[in-house]
């Protein structure tokens, strides 16, 4: 089974975020790191402050987009970046904690603002190697 990891994949105008992990929860957490990495290097974000989030959707793929959009909203309204995540799933209900800190333009050099997660290239699936994959394109 492959280790937990995140990556970006290309979209002509924007950016794809992808998380891989042994469970669906870990894949969602990794994708959240990929989301942060669209803006800045996650290694520069200190997990100082904790924020709790919850969402619910009719299916797992919509739930994944809701999860990323909940983070986009917290990033925008709190002016924060996040670098550590803990996701719990119960059916199509998600509760999570995200740790991060206030955006510091001089230190984080934010590249771009994420407008929202989209349903483009959206996929949540168990891979042949036994790892879970969660991905979609985010609009920047």
């Amino acid at each position: 089974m492959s280790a937990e990891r995140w990556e970006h994949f290309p979209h002509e105008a924007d950016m794809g975020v992808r998380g891989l992990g042994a469970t669906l929860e870990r894949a969602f957490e990794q994708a959240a790191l990929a989301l942060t990495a669209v803006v800045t290097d996650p290694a520069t974000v200190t997990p100082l402050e904790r924020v709790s989030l919850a969402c619910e959707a009719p299916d797992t793929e919509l739930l994944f987009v809701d999860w990323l959009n909940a983070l986009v909203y917290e990033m925008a309204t709190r002016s924060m970046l996040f670098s550590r995540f803990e996701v719990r799933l119960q059916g199509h209900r998600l509760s999570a904690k995200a740790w991060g800190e206030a955006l510091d333009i001089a230190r984080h050099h934010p590249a771009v603002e994420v407008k929202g997660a989209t349903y483009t290239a959206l996929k949540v699936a168990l891979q042949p190697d036994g790892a879970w994959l969660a991905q979609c394109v985010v609009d920047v």
Partner: protein
Amino acid sequence: MDLAKLERRSEFEWRVMPFGRMRVPGVIFASEALLRQMDDKVYEQVTNVAMLPGIVAASYAMPDAHWGYGFPIGGVAAFDPDQGGVVSAGGVGFDISCGVRTLHTGLRHDDIEPLKKQLTDTLYHAIPAGLGSTGAIRLEAAQMDAMLRGGAHWAVDQGFGEATDLERIEEGGCMRGADPSQVSEQAKKRQRDEMGTLGSGNHYLEVQQVTDIYAADIAAAFGVKPGDVVVSIHCGSRGLGHQIGTEFLRRMVISAPGYGIDLPDRELACAPIRSPLGQDYLGAMRSAINCALANRQILTHLTRKVFSQLLPQSRLPLLYDVSHNTCKVETHSVGGRPKELFVHRKGATRAFGPGHPDLPEALREVGQPVLIGGSMGTASYILAGTRASMQRAFGSACHGSGRAMSRHQALRNWNGRHVVDELAGRGILIRSPSSRGVAEEAPGAYKDVNAVVDSADHAGLACKVARLEPIICIKG
């Protein structure tokens, strides 16, 4: 794109004849060279849009079309409410009413040159740009609703700009039918500190000079001549528009089966125009249009303050303000009869021809200015709507050069610092809070804007009037 799948109707018009669930043909306006470069996803998205209920005439793509969400960016589609037509949150996009406005300055290139660096730094200081920047005003609930109802009118009432600006903005600066009660508290919260901010990504403020004139009579009516300095501002409805897009896309995806709509792609999320959800979205989306118009109006005011401080002889009246991501109710001729349609333009500009009643009197004879943004270091263009453009794609034209490669690829090809230095060597001063953002937006990551504009002109979507080159660029 594989040209074998298309039927060539003229040098710049290509058709996809309806197959499968397509209700109308797909039409792409582009030169053969631009079409060959277009992603196959554009073909797929053009044909998907053609499957939506109530679509009229065709699903169109402009010469700058590229892979978008559901609709291609550079997509145009009109829907008839009498035929079960839909309104699509995906067809408008996240950055509702993102657009460009161009201001005259009354200055010549020689007036700017001695002050160029100072002007660049002062603009960069005055214009909030990039992630995490906030505006000078914070809107509380009552003011927020007044802004969402009033648009640029509200901004002028607050002291941002002049009443004479309003006639040079689509809808006279205020989109009717806005319903702030359909805008969620979350969307309003996201906007509270973002009025008068540029945003990030491809948004910018540029000081430009006019280099070429192609249609002297129209240029004279627009008030531009070679050597003139103008200012162009590209930005949208900020966090409020993004949140409205996110929320309604979700609601429309979930409710589509209930409305009997089988979506070919979730991102085409839509609802019947004559449904509660369709009406709720229209009320919210029109509020976001007003937010974008108010935002560009505040940025105009900030720009004028900088110019009056450094160049007191300057005057910055508005040439025009266009919106790119909208759905608007317009009357068009269908089968020789006037018909009220809901026209979606996603990364496309309205391009009304001469004589259109919605144009201000001063421009009615010559047609609507169509402002085409370039990317840092490349040219921008001013075009004009023509009588022919009304017959092509419901009075629509391209909106910019359109990306040619992903941000991912751009980061591999360029380094932000080098891009800034190389442009400085060509006399173009760039200021941006983000070096990586500059690399992702490198001029080479975009299609050739000259080729896009030539295709729009030859296809009869709009006619070329003037070419602009950047002098200063404040990049979000």
